[in-house]
């Protein structure tokens, strides 16, 4: 039985925590939060690139470190913990994973090295409006090598150079690679619940685009990308949840009411114990997702859905109750509670809401039982 990270992976984690402690304090996150014109922190992005994290899972032949997905998971947990204001997930979990999954040799050779070097920010564009998208709801259209339609919202879509877009092609759906720096592309920045990350509406008018993978395979590929991203996002969510629990615990030990630390009251104790239980459940499911992702196991679709369902609910609960534990202080702008509360919601909806993933989980269980 070897269901935990290795010592090397754990020391990578410690190293990451130390690095982010210095370079990604909440001051850094707040610089992006407070300035609508800034969509991410460039210094941190550079630093993360220099650490090699952007290419952690990218093969050495393409300029990456060629480490496994497990290393990416421990980095994700630390980035989530830090509420890092950079387009890491869009570029690494979605864009790079999609390229590695579905890209041809030329596409990989052209873009993966740039991703690893931090020279290319990528994003993943599926949503076109309110509600969960489906293969039938997609309106953006790919015809004669050009893309027309609108995607809203696109997380990190305001700062990305390239997008992977889910679009209709004939009767089916295809995955497309689009250079966003071309005349046929218009972007509008969006105001969102989580201003520590950039969001845009992207409109395409006969924009040049090339297929990623086979025509008509787009939806299945998107689902496969989402499964991989789900596991990595789950680690960010677990990291954020853990940070909320630790923040609430520290406060509960030092804050006095009725001449006692509030952490000595059962109402607070049991609230924090419930947070702890939710996190342990989420963490254990996420580890299973990590194993399935790293070993390319057939269990990945099931494990990814379980990881994501557990982590989304845990983060919402922990972020919400962290505020409650802080009382009035927690409701102020100056205290960091709301940074987690905002990010928790972004992470919960950006790759499909909890309800969507719970339905996937049950479907996949049924499929597994049928098989």
């Amino acid at each position, binding site marked *: 039985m070897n269901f935990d990270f290795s010592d090397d992976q754990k020391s990578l984690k410690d190293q990451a925590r130390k690095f982010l402690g210095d370079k990604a304090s909440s001051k850094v996150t707040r610089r992006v939060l407070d300035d609508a014109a800034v969509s991410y922190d460039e210094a941190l992005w550079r630093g993360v690139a220099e650490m090699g994290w952007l290419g952690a899972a990218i093969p050495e032949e393409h300029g990456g470190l060629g480490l496994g997905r497990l290393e990416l998971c421990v980095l994700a947990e630390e980035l989530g913990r830090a509420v890092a204001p950079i387009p890491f997930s869009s570029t690494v979990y979605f864009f790079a994973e999609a390229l590695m999954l579905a890209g041809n040799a030329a596409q990989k050779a052209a873009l993966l090295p740039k991703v690893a070097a931090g020279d290319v920010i990528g994003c993943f564009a*599926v*949503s076109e*409006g*309110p*509600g*969960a*998208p*489906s293969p039938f*709801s997609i309106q953006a259209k790919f015809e004669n090598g050009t893309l027309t339609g609108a995607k*809203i*919202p696109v*997380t990190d879509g305001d700062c990305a150079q390239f997008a992977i877009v889910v679009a209709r092609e004939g009767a089916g759906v295809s995955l497309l690679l689009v250079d966003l720096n071309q005349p046929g592309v218009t972007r509008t920045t*969006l*105001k*969102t*619940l*989580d201003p520590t990350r950039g*969001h845009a509406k992207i409109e395409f008018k006969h924009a040049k685009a090339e297929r990623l993978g086979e025509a008509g395979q787009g939806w299945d590929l998107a689902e496969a990308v989402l499964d991989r991203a789900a596991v990595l996002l789950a680690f960010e969510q677990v990291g954020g949840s853990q940070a909320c629990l630790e923040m609430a615990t520290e406060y509960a030990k*030092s*804050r*006095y*009411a*009725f*001449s*006692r*630390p509030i952490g000595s*009251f059962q*109402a*607070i104790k049991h609230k924090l114990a419930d947070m702890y239980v939710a996190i342990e459940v989420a963490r254990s499911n996420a580890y299973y997702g990590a194993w399935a992702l790293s070993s390319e196991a057939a269990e990945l679709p099931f494990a990814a859905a379980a990881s994501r369902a557990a982590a989304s609910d845990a983060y*919402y609960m922990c972020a*919400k109750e962290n*505020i*409650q534990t802080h*009382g*009035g*202080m*927690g*409701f*102020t*702008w*100056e*205290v960091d*509670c*709301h940074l987690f*509360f905002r990010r928790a*919601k*972004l992470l*919960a*909806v*950006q*790759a*499909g*809401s*909890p*309800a*969507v993933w719970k*339905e996937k989980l049950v479907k996949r269980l049924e499929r597994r039982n049928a098989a």
Partner: protein
Amino acid sequence: MDFNDTPEEAAFRAEARAFLEATCKPKAAENERVSRSLKPVEYLKAAKAYQKKKAEAGFAGITWAKAQGGRGMAPIFNVIFGQEEAKFDAPSQAFAIGLGMCVPTVIAFADDATKDRYVAKALKGEEIWCQLFSEPGAGSDVAASKTKAVREGDDWIVNGQKVWTTGAQFSDFGILLARTNPDVEKHKGLTMFIVDMKAPGVEVRPIHQMSGGRDFNEVYFTEVRIPDKNRLGEPGQGWGVALVTLMNERLAVGGSYGPDYKEILDLARTLPSPTGAGQLIQNEAFRQKFADWIVRAEGYKLAKFRTMTALSRGQAPGPESAIGKVINANQMMDIGNTAIEALDHFGIINDGDLAPMEGAFHQSYMFAPGLRIAGGTDEILKNIIAERVLGLPQDQRADKGVAFKDLPTGR
């Protein structure tokens, strides 16, 4: 059982309605939020003018004694006026705390000269009042207030800080809970004062909320002088005075806020279901949750009808009024969150021009956490239900028989 007014109540309701129709414009929708369009200064002018008209027409201080310029009516008539007023765009908010909590405390504890000085002006809307109880170190535990008032001749010198003060920025006066004796138990060393908010040494700073708004203030006191005649109750009796004020607060809070189930129903008709075909409203998981919201929202509304009935019968309202805030704050949180998640990725957009209902669900998501805390946290309210309603014993106390200055504070 019926939901009808008594003849006397019906007559009063008609009278109130007539006054309101002549004075304010009706809300478009029953649940429309009061227009925030007015700038603070204009809003304040409008509010004062409206309050003046209310006073002239006899709708201010409905339950107050005639001697205080009130109308000496039973509480039910106050509720009836409130019900009617809620249907109009009436700028009454600025006076809620002053006339609802502060001035009644003045009436209860001040001498005639003091009452003559303050009550009538407050009633006519000429002066606005705020409540200065909470402190950074005394939130749930208000009796731990450490803002200090030291006797000096005929005056008291006040130093300290209050927080979460609504309306401090435009208030003329406030009632201030201060520590006048740190050498006795915490409940026994407090004294209540009337403080002039324009006095030298009083500084008001807005608090920046996580939701972005600035609805509350911090108030700093530096060497502020309060004449002893502005003391309410005896020195050391301040906690007893504060309890009178807080009793009124419990009746004030607990209204419903933010979008309720009717509004998420509108959204659910247009959104696709997250699972399976059709609209969200056809999703069985949503429908079951939706039913729970109906049950709680209706249950809360109907509990208020029970309270009104008690008032209408001249009885003391039952404890059912205590459940309001616990239900509403959490339901608002849940509805806001459910709406955002149902929008899926699009739910992250809170731009009022793009988000459904001008982003009202997003406002709920960011404001509900505050409502779970303001005016008594969920935890405090449950303690109150457990102790005052069910009669369960107090928690083990760490401060029994200990002088305030010797109490552990963790600092």
